[in-house]
């Protein structure tokens, strides 16, 4: 099996899907000739031509809005927003049309689009290049939101997203684009959207996270194990709709929860998870479900970045506090 990093998995999956279904088209700023600023779409134009992989004018509302039209007329658009921080000009198209075309037309029209975006902090980038605003999308009825954390999952989830007849927001944690490699099967496989993954079994506490933070969570988990605390670790993978079953099953076992995300605390996805857990596993809770997240601040420029992203040490501290609560 070939070894791949997340970026290569994106690239391979795009190729695979474009080969499989010639309705799949890929476009965005610099994705064509250049192959994308991260090279996620490299070689696509060479293999599939300028009618399947296109450079676009510098206009995000256009990228999404035009993508809607293409989806309505027989194509399967996979568009790239260069960085998540630049998706906001497209918000109107996403909220008022992408998420609503099926419902508005009672099923006559659908938008089978995938919107890919590099996302999250940790690459010492300029302003607007580090944010994690998955919660904004997760609140919009009609959108699915997916975040892989490994090369293997990237392939299976991206293929599912592209094949999904409904729109999918596909967030690519750029901090781990090239961070590590994994064996990724050459043949096609799908990982279902809406299913979380228990990455590690444990008894003492359930840790829920997604995307790049999974790495810090797993490091913290190792450190915790060194202290005799055995967390169960869930990679949420799909932010909307949340796989409540997997979450609840775990919490019922452990009784304690820590949610780790990079987005600001207030209004983040952590809040929704805690509410679900209250609704479905209240009597199993032995400690208040806790959150370790980004601050309620703008993501700092690189000189302050290390303060912002939850570190293994901070995660460990929260684990310990939550596990030691009233014991």
């Amino acid at each position, binding site marked *: 099996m070939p070894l791949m990093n997340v970026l290569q998995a994106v690239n391979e999956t795009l190729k695979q899907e474009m080969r499989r279904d010639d309705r799949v088209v890929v476009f965005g700023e610099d994705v064509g000739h250049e192959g994308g600023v991260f090279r996620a779409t490299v070689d696509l134009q060479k293999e599939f031509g300028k009618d399947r992989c296109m450079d676009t004018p510098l206009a995000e509302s256009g990228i999404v809005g035009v993508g809607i039209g293409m989806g309505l007329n027989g194509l399967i658009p996979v568009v790239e927003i260069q960085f998540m921080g630049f998706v906001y000009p497209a918000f109107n198209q996403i909220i008022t049309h992408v998420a609503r075309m099926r419902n508005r*037309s009672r099923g006559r029209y659908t938008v089978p689009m995938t919107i890919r975006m590099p996302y999250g902090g940790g690459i010492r980038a300029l302003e607007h290049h580090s944010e994690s605003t998955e919660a904004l999308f997760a609140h919009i009825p009609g959108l699915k939101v997916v975040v892989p954390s490994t090369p293997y999952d990237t392939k299976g989830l991206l293929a599912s997203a592209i094949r999904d007849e409904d729109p999918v927001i596909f967030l690519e944690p750029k901090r781990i684009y090239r961070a590590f490699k994994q064996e990724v099967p050459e043949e096609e496989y799908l990982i279902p959207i809406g299913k979380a993954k228990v990455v590690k079994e444990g008894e003492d506490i359930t840790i829920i996270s997604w995307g790049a933070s999974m790495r810090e969570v797993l490091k913290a988990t190792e450190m915790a194990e060194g202290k005799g605390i055995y967390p169960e670790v869930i990679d949420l993978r799909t932010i909307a709709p949340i796989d409540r079953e997997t979450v609840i099953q775990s919490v019922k076992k452990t009784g304690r929860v820590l949610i780790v995300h990079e987005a600001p605390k207030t209004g983040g996805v952590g809040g929704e998870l805690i509410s679900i857990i209250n609704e479905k596993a209240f009597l199993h809770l032995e400690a208040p479900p806790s959150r370790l997240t980004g601050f309620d601040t703008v993501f700092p420029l690189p000189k302050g970045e290390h303060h912002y992203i939850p570190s293994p040490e901070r995660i460990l501290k929260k684990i310990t506090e939550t596990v030691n609560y009233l014991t």
Partner: protein
Amino acid sequence: MIYEDYNPMKKKMFQIMNEEGEIIQPQLMPDLGKEELLKMYRLMVQTRETDKKALLYQRQGRMLTYAPNLGQEAAQVGSALSLGKEDWMVPAFRELGAWLARGIEVNMVYLYWYGNEYGSKVPEGIKVLPVSVPIASQLQHAVGIAWASKLQEKDEVVMTYFGDGATSQGDFGEAMNWAGVYQTPTIFFCQNNQFAISVPRGSQTASETIAQKSIAYGMPGIQVDGNDIFAVYVATKEAVKRARNGGGPTLIEAFTYRLGAHTTSDDPTRYRSDQEVEAWKKKDPIDRMKKYLMREGLLTEEEDEKIAQEYINIAEDAFKYVEANGEIELEDIFKYQFKEMTPQLKEQLEEYKEFLRGRGEA
């Protein structure tokens, strides 16, 4: 032909038939037989009668907010008739005439304004998008549909509708620019009806015409008399033909006037004078064509009345249908979020149904 001769910077409106229904540019008159001429006229009359009835029902409290299109019939019908069945129409929300011209039944239109999503379930085989409320956003879809058509060599053309106000939105510029870059077969049909709610055209942009905005995107632009159905038809027809032949997009400004209110919630006397409205009534697109048809011996007063009555009847029947069948099914609120309901949606629906059952309502 007309585009090659036309320079939007000269600010000369393209006209074929004047306000008296006289053909002032006979060499440009489209080659239409009696049947086709009457079809045009009938559609305009149907638009007007369907509109009038909607307003009436609205005033009776039987229909919700409604956006009348009185005065814009020629712009809508003339442009929509330039399309083939294979082509797409991407509307804003005031395009009753174009909807009818595309073969959508009055039932559907009324159902929409009755507050029921099924009014947007365009029948299979008719390539019309649902009403798009966010101003100018639909232009992007029109470019995408057209681009997809070009990439798939489908030969479809896309006509998209918007108002003078829409030209101020970012999406207008983006869509026009994109269409220019990829030479998509898109016709940008602006109904300049002189107002965006209360804001007059002159406060919307300092550009002397909407047509000249085409220059910013490297595409042809033309200002046509929007109340002259022949001018509209010819200008759109030629743009459609060029688009179909790979000649790219066109911006058409149909210079017209909204004679009625913006919507039924609006009181236009707050922002414009009776004189202005009266002056525009003299340019009425239907009167104008009627004069033409009668002069040509293609229509009598009697026939005219019969046509109107026919469409009044259709409108009344349609509304009866809607009042009898216009309620929604609870499930439908949940069923169309995704291809399949998520567990969350199922649970929420179930919980709500349980509540209704508890009250003996379900």
